[in-house]
């Protein structure tokens, strides 16, 4: 007889018990015993236990008819539960699944009057406590949605559930106990895998408990209700969590911890590592265009090696591993065991990027994904060892070249170990290579083909070359890090000092004094002040090198994407610019370079057809000119097609339809490309063509008070020239006077100034005042009128006209007179955030009064619209 038929018989006796009452008891007891035996053989221990206790109790109860009458309902209920439980267990056991999660019915024991009283007391106490606990749970769960520290709340919830589980256990309430247990497991699974806390589900669980508590307060014998649906949901959650756990490996970030004692070295490490990475990146880019330049590889190798060394000291294991495997790959290239492909260069660049990201993560930014990290490490390993995967490299920074050794035997076919071993003696200059036998165990260094100065470094063991790197670092100027706020403060204060100094100098009281020594001393103070100002300014100056190097990388990537060959020539990367300016030219440069490659430079085939070299040439240079810095981007591509630009602009509605190309100057036509929405690209690619880029360029450059000039000839290429101020804090200005007010006009915006001859002045009906300047008729804007000033000259012929250019359109500003040219420190007008239209700020003049600095762009714009 199987367990199934046993349960069936038990079901039958249950029916009899219902109908016949006490007569059927013996049968029920017997059937339960039978099921118990089956359960034992099927090792369903819980079922066996329930049956045994149940059978014993029922038998005991049946002994006394009165007692049995009183507890008949309980007996029926229990047997019913046993039948249900038994069939569930049997089904689970047949299906081969674990049945420990199935809730057994409470053990059926002889109700003892004394015990019952005690139970009621305990229960009463428990209910009071539990109702509070569940209310608290509910509150906690709800608060999770807005909590800032969910971990703490969750662990609180878990503790509460755990306590409740124990209490249900004491009260022998198996249903609630199991549900608590499962809930606890689910919470564990959630926290372990950092999953979103299932607020909804947990509230449902709490609701079930709360309802149960509600019933319990009314009826001590209330049943819990079927916990199974809830249990199923929780199980699903736990299973889901387990699945997510497997996945979570992929979504976790690479995290690194630094012990407190190293915190100081960490900042230093971050700065140094960044510098090394920049060096490495530019070296790699250089190497990709000049594969014979082994010194580039050496430099990169040293950079990674140094990073690895310090990272090892700081215990940044993932970083060390990555740096190490990259180093191994580079070592292969150094010693010519590997033929370095573009793909390998990409890998090294990618490794640099990832290390940089990991360094970011040390500063609290999110690190790279662990799976990305692993993938990259695997790729690097594969590349370092040919295609055969090598054993996972351990992070022992002390032995950099040893793990590289296996790569020897799996080197690419052209450089197989045997070939090397044979070739080695012939090439042999280093003594190690002369002995072919231990070749597999000793790294062989073959001098690179062109015997350059860096060649000996290549044949040195890695440790030595790293030492050389350190030595090189020692030669570099010593620097300290200063916060930029402090620096800005210093520059501001020096600016004030300059003003104060000249105020003293021009004070009438001082000027009246007739003292040689005083004049000399004042002169001395003046000189020191100017030197100090220059020194302070130079503190904020940084070279454009880093920005240009970024562009080198960009050119490489963009050219690859666009399927074009582009050579980049960089000059003047030592040119210094204000830090703020350098930061802000990066974006415009990116756009312009993308455009130059995507639109300017033709595909290799087109170039050949035009009789040009297939490689496009792009040059990026920086130089001083006048008081400003010029950054030039020059390509030898197809050039800007004036007619096509005008046609496109008309099509896009940016120009009136009757615009004539013939009357437009080159610069007017070329300036159209800066209009928002302008693009001549036939199709939008992921590189460019959306018509946003050049608009952004112009905005950014103008925000820096710079100018863009375009020079282009069809077929010969285009040159963009960005003219930028040396610094943002100081501008060269022309001080002009209107009435009794002074204004500063940035010299950069001024083309010329002149006193107009009355015969050149015209008043055009509807258009306002105009002046003829060298054949062109320009509108005249009166500063007095724009600013609504009461005083100031009215007769144009008596004053001065200043020609300014805004968006390629020239116009004149009318002022009373020009007071002189002066460098002024730009200050905010202190009017909360916004600028006043037409003004870019204020300058404190030598007499201590404020003069307003004009923002010619918005000034003319507002004058036009007025």
């Amino acid at each position: 007889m199987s367990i199934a038929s046993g349960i069936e018989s038990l079901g039958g006796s249950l029916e009899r018990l219902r109908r016949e009452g006490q007569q059927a008891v013996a049968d029920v007891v017997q059937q339960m015993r039978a099921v118990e035996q089956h359960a034992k053989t099927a090792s369903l221990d819980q079922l066996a236990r329930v049956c045994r206790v149940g059978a014993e109790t029922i038998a005991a109860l049946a002994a006394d008819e009165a007692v049995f009458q009183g507890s008949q309902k309980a007996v029926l209920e229990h047997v019913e539960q046993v039948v249900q439980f038994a069939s569930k267990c049997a089904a689970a056991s047949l299906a081969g699944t674990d049945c420990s999660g199935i809730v057994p019915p409470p053990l059926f024991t002889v109700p003892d009057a004394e015990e019952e009283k005690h139970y009621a007391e305990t229960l009463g106490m428990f209910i009071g406590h539990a109702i509070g606990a569940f209310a608290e749970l509910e509150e906690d769960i709800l608060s999770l949605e807005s909590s800032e520290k969910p971990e703490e709340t969750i662990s609180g919830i878990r503790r509460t559930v755990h306590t409740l589980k124990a209490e249900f256990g004491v009260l022998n309430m198996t249903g609630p106990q199991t549900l608590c247990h499962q809930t606890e497991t689910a919470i564990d699974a959630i926290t372990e895998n950092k999953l979103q806390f299932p607020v909804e589900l947990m509230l449902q669980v709490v609701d079930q408990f709360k309802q149960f508590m509600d019933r319990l307060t009314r009826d001590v014998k209330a049943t819990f209700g079927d916990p199974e649906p809830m249990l199923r949901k929780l199980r699903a959650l736990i299973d889901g969590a387990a699945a997510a756990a497997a996945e979570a490996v992929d979504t976790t970030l690479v995290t690194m911890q630094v012990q407190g004692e190293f915190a100081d070295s960490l900042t230093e490490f971050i700065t140094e590592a960044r510098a090394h990475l920049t060096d490495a990146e530019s070296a790699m880019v250089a190497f990709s265009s000049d594969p014979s330049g082994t010194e580039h590889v050496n430099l990169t190798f040293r950079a990674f090696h140094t990073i690895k060394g310090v990272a090892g000291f700081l215990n940044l294991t993932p970083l060390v591993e990555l740096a190490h495997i990259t180093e191994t790959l580079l070592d292969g290239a150094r010693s010519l065991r590997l033929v370095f492909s573009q793909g390998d260069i990409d890998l090294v660049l990618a490794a640099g990027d990832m290390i940089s990201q990991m360094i970011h993560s040390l500063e609290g930014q999110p690190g790279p994904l662990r799976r990305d990290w692993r993938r990259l490490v695997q790729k690097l390993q594969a590349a370092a060892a040919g295609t055969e995967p090598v054993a996972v490299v351990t992070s022992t920074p002390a032995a950099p070249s040893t793990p590289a050794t296996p790569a020897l035997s799996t080197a690419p076919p052209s450089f197989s170990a045997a070939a090397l071993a044979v070739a080695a003696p012939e090439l042999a200059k280093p003594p190690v290579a002369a002995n072919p036998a231990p070749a597999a165990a000793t790294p062989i260094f073959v001098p690179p083909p062109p015997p350059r100065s860096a060649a000996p470094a290549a044949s040195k063991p890695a440790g030595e070359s790293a030492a050389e790197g350190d030595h090189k670092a020692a030669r570099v100027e010593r620097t300290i890090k200063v916060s930029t706020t402090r620096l800005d403060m210093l520059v501001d204060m020096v600016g004030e000092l300059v003003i104060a100094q000249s105020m003293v100098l021009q004070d009438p009281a001082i000027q009246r004094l007739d003292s040689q020594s005083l004049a000399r001393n004042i002169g001395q103070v003046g000189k020191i002040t100017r030197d100090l100002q220059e020194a302070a300014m130079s503190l904020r100056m940084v070279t454009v090198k880093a920005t240009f190097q970024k562009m080198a990388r960009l050119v490489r990537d963009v050219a690859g994407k666009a399927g074009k060959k582009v050579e980049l020539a960089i000059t003047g990367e030592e040119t210094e610019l204000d830090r703020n300016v350098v930061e802000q030219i990066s974006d415009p440069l990116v756009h312009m370079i993308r455009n130059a490659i995507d639109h300017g430079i033709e595909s290799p085939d087109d170039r050949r057809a035009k009789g040009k070299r297939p490689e496009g040439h792009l040059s990026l240079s920086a130089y001083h000119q006048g008081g400003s810095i010029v950054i030039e981007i020059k390509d030898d591509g197809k050039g800007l097609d004036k007619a096509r630009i005008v046609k496109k602009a008309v099509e896009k509605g940016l120009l009136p339809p009757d615009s004539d190309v013939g009357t437009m100057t080159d610069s007017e036509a070329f300036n159209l490309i800066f209009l928002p929405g302008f693009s001549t690209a036939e199709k939008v690619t992921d590189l460019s063509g959306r018509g946003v880029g050049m608009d952004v360029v112009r905005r950014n450059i103008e925000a820096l008070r710079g100018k863009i000039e375009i020079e282009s000839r069809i077929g010969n290429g285009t040159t963009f020239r960005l003219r930028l101020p040396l610094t943002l804090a100081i501008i060269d200005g022309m001080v002009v006077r209107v009435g009794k007010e002074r204004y500063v006009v940035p010299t950069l915006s001024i083309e010329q100034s002149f006193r107009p001859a009355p015969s050149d002045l015209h008043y055009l009906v509807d258009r306002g005042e105009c002046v003829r300047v060298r054949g062109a008729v320009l509108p005249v804007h009166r500063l007095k009128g724009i600013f609504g000033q009461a005083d100031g000259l009215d007769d144009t012929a008596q004053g001065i006209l200043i020609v300014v250019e805004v968006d390629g359109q020239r116009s004149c500003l009318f002022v009373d007179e020009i007071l002189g040219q002066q460098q002024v420190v730009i200050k905010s007008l202190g009017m909360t955030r916004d600028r006043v239209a037409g003004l870019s700020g204020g300058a404190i003049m030598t007499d201590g009064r404020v003069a307003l600095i004009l923002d010619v762009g918005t000034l003319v714009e507002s004058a036009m619209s007025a």
Partner: protein
Amino acid sequence: MTTATQSPAAAGQKGFTAGKYLSFQLSKEEYGIAILKVREIIGMVDVTPLPRTPDFVRGVINLRGRIIPVMDLRRKFGMAPAEFTNETCVVVVDVGRDADSTFRVGCIVDTVSEVLSIAAEHFEATPRCTNAAGDYIAGLAKLKDRVLILLDIEKVIGDLDPAVMAQGN
């Protein structure tokens, strides 16, 4: 009882804190500003007019190397203009919610009188008769022989916000 969201007037009353106030004269009335808002008091200096701003913005001045706007409280409150005298002062106040967004403004007043301690029992809410401009007034301080109008300087200066200024234009 105050509720969480207060009407401006209620905020003004709530905003009253007993303590020291700087009193100054404007036309015939005497006003008070919480001394904690006042940074310094300087004599009248040359003001560079700032075009395209409401007329109560007299312009900007050089406050030891920093440019700050100055507003004419007489114009602000729609009073008859007065000549600047030796008594005319600029009360430099710092307003703003936090240190990052402090906004420093000079307020031109006829003359600065004294620093007074004003206790809670002197304070009285703004009478209902005031019009919209009453927003600027935190309340009144009844002293032995006179009444001080306590300004909510944050509200007064708040009008220098560009958005509000655009309307004033």
